[in-house]
């Protein structure tokens, strides 16, 4: 993509990006414009629910995602998400709407009242996938005005961006490269460490605070040991857990869009 065709995507920000994680959202939009695509917010979107319901007979909890997907389809766009959790929920729900006949039937029955009928027509993309597959890392690199030279940055994927691999299909869940390529594109040096795709503890802060504390400490220690100065992530909850349980670690955790905006704007 070299500035010829300006693409518009439907965009699902999710509740947290409008509130506690505004920077994640703001930097994303600003960078998008600079890179030649527009994020058009889905009108009247509702919270995705934060976690994908694993039960086979859960239908009502999937409806908000389906409404957003249908809205994107009607606008003729693919749907872009940024928050890892929203991405995981919506992409898995979309996969159900493409493969599980009983869910398709029940969901569409529910939505008859809203006059919505959806069968998985929309493609769900993560912002990073747009950068990799549509814009291209070379173009991103070309647009960088302030490269982050000398910075050693670890990618923290968390568990939701990549798994389950067969549905998310963003990258190899055990050996991903997409965030490392992003870090290179903005001029910094990526640091690889094994715990980059393991869970931070997520919502168990409400059950037992020691769980996210333990998890975060391990992750930060692993990244720091391998030479990282900072971590980038796409998930507000991951960032919260890592920062809250920083302990002695010197690592700062920022959103990848903040880095992007810093580099190209």
């Amino acid at each position: 993509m070299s500035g010829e065709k300006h693409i518009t995507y439907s965009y699902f920000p999710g509740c947290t990006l409008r509130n506690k994680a505004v920077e994640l959202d703001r930097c994303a939009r600003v960078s998008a414009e600079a890179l030649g695509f527009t994020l058009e917010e889905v009108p009247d979107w509702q919270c995705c629910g934060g976690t994908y319901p694993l039960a086979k007979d859960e239908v009502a909890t999937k409806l908000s995602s389906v409404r957003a997907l249908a809205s994107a389809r009607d606008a003729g766009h693919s749907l872009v998400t940024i928050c890892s959790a929203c991405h995981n929920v919506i992409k898995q729900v979309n996969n159900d709407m493409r493969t599980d006949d009983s869910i398709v039937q029940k969901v569409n029955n529910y939505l008859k009242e809203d006059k919505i009928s959806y069968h998985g027509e929309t493609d769900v993309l993560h912002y990073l996938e747009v950068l990799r597959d549509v814009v291209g890392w070379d173009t991103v690199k070309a647009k960088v005005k302030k490269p982050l030279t000398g910075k050693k940055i670890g990618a923290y994927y968390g568990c939701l961006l990549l798994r389950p691999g067969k549905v998310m299909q963003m990258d190899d869940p055990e050996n991903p490269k997409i965030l490392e390529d992003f870090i290179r594109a903005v001029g910094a040096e990526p640091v690889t460490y094994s715990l980059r795709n393991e869970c931070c503890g997520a919502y168990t802060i409400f059950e037992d605070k020691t769980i996210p504390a333990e998890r975060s400490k391990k992750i930060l220690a692993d990244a720091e040991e391998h030479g990282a100065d900072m971590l980038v992530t796409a998930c507000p909850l991951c960032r919260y857990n890592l920062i809250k349980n920083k302990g002695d670690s010197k690592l700062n955790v920022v959103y990848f869009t903040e880095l992007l905006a810093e580099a190209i704007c």
Partner: protein
Amino acid sequence: MLESELAKIKDEILSVSGVNPRKCMCCGKCSGTCPSYDAMEYHPHEFVHMVETGDIEPLLTTKSLYTCLSCFACIERCPRQVEPAKLVEAVRMVVERQRGPQHLEAENVPGLIDGDMPQQAVVSAFRKYRK
């Protein structure tokens, strides 16, 4: 509990989860990879084994139901696609549906949050612990 009650609960767990526990070859990779192992009383491989053998009563009251992170590691890495996390969630759902949501009370939430906590955390917790 009566055996017939347990049998019914087992059927419900299996149909809600869509899991076939007989696919399991008892390798232990799920528990080997679980990041929350030490915080769980019954571990992913035990969920699979105990649901299949019908030894379900201990699972209904264990704290493990709430310390599973839903991180999909066991789902991703199980060589036989057994998907243990779906069983854990199914047991939790069956319990919640039967007795009603009791685990996370709304009035306790303000004491647990702080100014930086993202909404995502509260929403996910409610969905996991009260549905």
